[in-house]
């Protein structure tokens, strides 16, 4: 309900499309107060491999639907066979967070 969970399998050097449907405390689709931030963690530890922000406006005019991209390159700290977690953080009056996962084959 609150997120996608597993995002799928990707290849090294793929461009990963990040997406997040922002909800308020009543789970109603809502535009966040500011651009949601994200951090990608290697499953092996809790240090962030990459961080960034999603778009500051709704994608396709869908309320609260924010997207962004990240290059899954070795230069950016990613590796084949790696399993990664993404944590999105955003605010709709209160603070919320959503996690998703993906694997690079």
């Amino acid at each position, binding site marked *: *309900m*609150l*997120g*996608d*969970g*597993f*995002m*799928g*399998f*990707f290849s090294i050097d793929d*461009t990963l*499309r990040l*997406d997040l*449907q922002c*909800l308020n405390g*009543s*789970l*109603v*689709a809502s535009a966040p107060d500011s651009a949601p931030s994200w951090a990608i963690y290697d499953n092996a530890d809790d240090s962030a491999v990459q961080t960034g922000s999603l778009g500051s406006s709704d*994608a*396709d005019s*869908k*309320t*609260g*639907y924010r*997207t962004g991209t990240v290059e899954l390159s070795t230069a950016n700290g990613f590796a084949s066979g790696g399993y990664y977690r993404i944590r999105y953080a955003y605010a709709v009056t209160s603070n919320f967070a959503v996690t998703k996962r993906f694997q690079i084959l």
Partner: protein
Amino acid sequence: MNLGRRELGEWLPIYLVCRSGPLVEAAPVVAPAYSIYPGDSDTPLESDVTMPPINRDELTGHFLAHHRLGPKFSTGHYRVLKEWTVGTNSFAETDSFEIVGGGSSKGAYVGLFWYERPHAKYLIGQLDDGTIERRPSPRL
């Protein structure tokens, strides 16, 4: 939810349980709709496709659509955004899936006909997308 790895021509099941804020199953005011986005763009390949209900007599707010992965699609990652409204509140959730190599955007055979003529025998088949194919001289 991740809808898995698919091939072209498959019918992708897109499932939705409409809920109101407190996670209670709820009937939406109008049919929910989904849009499908490719992995590299926020321009939808399919936009606001409405979903039919399932088992309406026993279930509240359950919807299931089957979307054919036809010629608009190619290998790659896709996102699905499902939206519904209960009362005056709008809700949404996301799915994702990947199309891997193999399959055909024409789909599978939905009908076959044995057609025998004096000079040859044929198998006439119709595919999901309506294409009629003639296969001469079939052999077992």
